[in-house]
């Protein structure tokens, strides 16, 4: 059914976005310090999972460099701000430019690769990044990373506590909005076509290489922006945060939630990030084992991801047989 007022239709996503932001940011003001901290880190994982879902789930690129770009963003903003003393907006722009440069440097040669080989290249990049961080001397701070800095004042204000959580909430909503918008555009359809059958996509006029490069660069830059925001969560950056094991956890989040579905990425990130916090007080150090069993069970029993459960319930409610 078409609306009589086209402005109303256009305003709807904006109102939805504003509503989501108010709810996500507002929740932080009702939490204590601990819950706020966990919530901030959870929202950042959600942002990363959304970006990675677009790369892996929508565009079909198996890459393990997402956390390296998260790290490039985090380290670059700190280095540009506190070692090169650039003003904040310029430091942010330089950080994004660095992410774009690195992403293109990886993505363009990688267009010759696919599947398993792209995974290997990005895995190597992820490990190389950690080596660079550890061996980076005074620039990266070595194994201890960089600490002893604070978010600069912006217009005389220094955002902290729940106010900084609101910044992260804004990042989540903006990331979601950008990716959903892209997914529903011709570019999103091109990405899915490339994922499902690159030859057929090329025959239909899709520039496969360009689509892959754009998707890789865009999601890597989103991860980099997430990293810039992360850098001021605890005011410290160090190598273990950006380790390769977190890249695997991100992959699990997307698969468990439902690859190719934005809501699935959110579900997967929330569940897998919070599970150890819930399980640890209940089963002590066995939480790692229970965590593993639950993840395997979710993949075996629900191959479409946990979002598949929602689909079935929704289909039954609507009365349609299945998707």
């Amino acid at each position: 059914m078409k609306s009589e007022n086209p402005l109303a239709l256009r305003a709807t996503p904006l109102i939805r976005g504003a509503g989501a932001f108010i709810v996500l940011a507002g929740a932080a003001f009702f939490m204590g310090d601990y819950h706020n901290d966990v919530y901030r880190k959870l929202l950042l994982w959600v942002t990363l999972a959304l970006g990675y879902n677009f790369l892996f789930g929508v565009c079909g690129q198996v890459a393990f460099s997402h956390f390296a770009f998260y790290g490039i963003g985090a380290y670059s903003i700190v280095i540009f701000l506190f070692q090169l003393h650039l003003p904040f907006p310029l430091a942010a722009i330089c950080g994004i430019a660095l992410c774009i440069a690195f992403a293109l440097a990886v993505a363009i040669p990688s267009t010759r690769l696919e599947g398993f080989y792209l995974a290997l290249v990005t895995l190597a990049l992820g490990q190389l990044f950690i080596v660079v961080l550890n061996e980076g001397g005074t620039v990266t701070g070595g194994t201890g990373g960089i600490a002893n800095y604070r978010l600069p004042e912006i217009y005389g204000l220094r955002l902290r506590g729940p106010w900084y959580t609101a910044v992260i909430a804004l990042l989540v909503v903006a990331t979601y909005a950008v990716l959903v918008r892209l997914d529903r555009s011709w570019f999103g359809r091109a990405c899915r076509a490339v994922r499902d059958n690159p030859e057929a996509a090329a025959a239909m006029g899709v520039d496969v290489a360009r689509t892959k490069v754009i998707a890789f660069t865009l999601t890597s830059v989103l991860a980099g922006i997430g990293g810039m925001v992360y850098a001021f969560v605890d005011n410290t950056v160090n190598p273990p945060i950006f380790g390769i094991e977190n890249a695997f956890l991100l992959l699990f989040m997307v698969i468990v939630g439902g690859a190719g579905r934005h809501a699935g990425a959110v579900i997967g990130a929330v569940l897998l990030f919070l599970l150890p916090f819930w399980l640890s007080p209940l089963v002590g150090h066995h939480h790692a084992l229970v965590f593993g069993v639950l993840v395997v069970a979710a993949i075996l029993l629900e191959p479409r991801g946990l979002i598949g459960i929602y689909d079935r319930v929704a289909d039954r409610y609507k009365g349609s047989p299945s998707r």
Partner: protein
Amino acid sequence: MKLVAMLAAALIAVAAQAQDTIKIGVITDRVGVSKPYSEPATEGMVFGANEINKKGGVLGRRLELLVEDDQSKPDVSAALARKLIDQGAVFILSVSLSPATQQQQTVTMEAKTPQMTPMNSADYLTTQLDNPYFWQTGPLGSVQIATLLAHAKKQNLKRVALITDNSDLGQAIGKAFRGGLEKAAMQVVDEEVVPLGATSATPQMQKIRAANPDAMFVAGVVTATNVLIFKAYRELGLKFPIHASYNLSVPIYMTAAKGLVNGITFVDAYDPDKPEVKAFEATYRKETGKEPANLHGYGYDGIMLVAEAIKKAGSTDKEKIRAAMQSLTYGGVMGAKGMKYHFPEGKRTGFDPNGMVVRVYEGDRQGRVVHVGQQ
């Protein structure tokens, strides 16, 4: 009515008892990469807290340990520090990964809550952040290397070989060893790396044999890789002495490298002949029925130092505890005979730079001390 009154009285009693405890937060690692170090240290802490409580606690109140598992994830670790502070911990003890301890500091500094690591060895923990609420009593990495090199210098070594693994820490220690050896005018005639996941270290050891060194330094920190190195050393019938990093002080080598470690010297912070160690080991065995090791000693000393600081402060006021901790002098289980932890001139590293020892494996057991300090 009587029942209600009894229940209310019981509830009040429980609440009063809960209030009466002094809460100490412990951030450990039960599943991550630090688990082999963190778990024994935590057990030592629990044992120490029980011992203190049996003697009446501190300031007439029991110590209550709130133990959290950070999985060696620095971001999770910082969140748990906030949780412990929210739960009323007046002091936090950190026995997880060094970067995790560092990230906790950003929270304890902001919340002005005393924090100490009795075990971490990273030098940067007290230099990167000017956090007056943080102390480190684990021996610094630089002190460990200097102690081992001081011992090596006495052997009049000229040509040495260096072997490590390709883990981040193994590479970092290897780099520090190389720098120290060159500074001590010892020529590194061969340097080998055994990659993680290798099934043999024989090729690397053959190259070292060909270089004919006076001694070999092992900087690796991965047990499986080090066992391969020692196995190849035995199989090739090599005779030059082996000097190893503090990683060889982890008790697992006594079982995992059976028949392979005799004669290897390694740096440690634990002297089995020290009277305090003998008393600690005897009580630990009696109370738990288990064999204690050096790692238990780190945790034990940690909780004892905290108890001493609170006692000296005469209060659980965090600012008073901070002041008391900074002026504390305490002789514990760890360190060479007579070593005392103290924090002179506002320093926050409490382990005496001459307090480390070099020990030797006698058979499969970690044996006697053969060298003390950096001289």
